[in-house]
């Protein structure tokens, strides 16, 4: 299960819409085990492509350090699919960097964004529920 505040949810979706026509990406920090995301780090897509994403390496370092400063860990990545469903592509599955992470897909193929989250372990994809919390949580 992935739990996030509505502010974080909106921040994530806004970043994806702003990134059009390219894919957008970002990192989530929080508690990996419980699935509670406390902070969203919108990052630059260094691939600048409508089909691929690459989290900019400087943004990665900044996010990792900031998360650590707040006693959090990077616990997942989100990215958009501009024309396909909110499901991990074969590339997403092959390149998933950490089996403990949550992988969030934001599909912008239709008028309304669709947000779904997954665990990817040893090439196996399992969907998990996304719970949007009413109250804003502060990091740290």
């Amino acid at each position, binding site marked *: 299960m992935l739990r996030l505040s509505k502010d974080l949810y909106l921040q994530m979706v806004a970043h994806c819409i702003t990134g059009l026509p390219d894919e957008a990406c970002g990192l989530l920090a929080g508690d990996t085990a419980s699935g509670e995301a406390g902070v969203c780090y919108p990052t630059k897509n260094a691939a600048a492509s409508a089909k691929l994403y690459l989290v900019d*390496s400087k943004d990665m370092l900044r996010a990792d350090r900031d998360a650590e400063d707040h006693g959090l860990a*990077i616990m997942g990545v989100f990215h958009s699919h501009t024309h396909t469903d909110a499901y*991990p592509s074969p*590339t997403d599955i092959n390149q998933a960097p950490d089996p403990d992470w949550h992988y969030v897909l934001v599909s912008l193929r239709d008028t309304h964004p669709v947000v779904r989250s997954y665990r990817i372990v040893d090439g196996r994809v399992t969907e998990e529920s996304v719970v949007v919390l009413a109250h804003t949580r502060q990091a740290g």
Partner: protein
Amino acid sequence: MPVDVRLPTVLRSQAGGQSTVSLDASTIGEVLSGLVAQYPGMSGQLLNDDGTLHRFVNVYVNDDDVRYLSALDTPVKDGDEVSILPAVAGG
């Protein structure tokens, strides 16, 4: 030169759970080969067969990504912090 190397979460179990290891090196290449010498299981995740940096790994010296410096030839000096993080990508 002793340098501190921060490991990404995904490699820490191979270093006995440590998040930072200290080793002697003068270049990034020596840092990575030093890590692999100590923890051979990390080899495939850090380096390609030809010894170049794996595309899904980012290595930094202090605040700088070594791909913007001299890659594996990037010098490291006493007190530098080397960080290894995943290069997160997909499609």
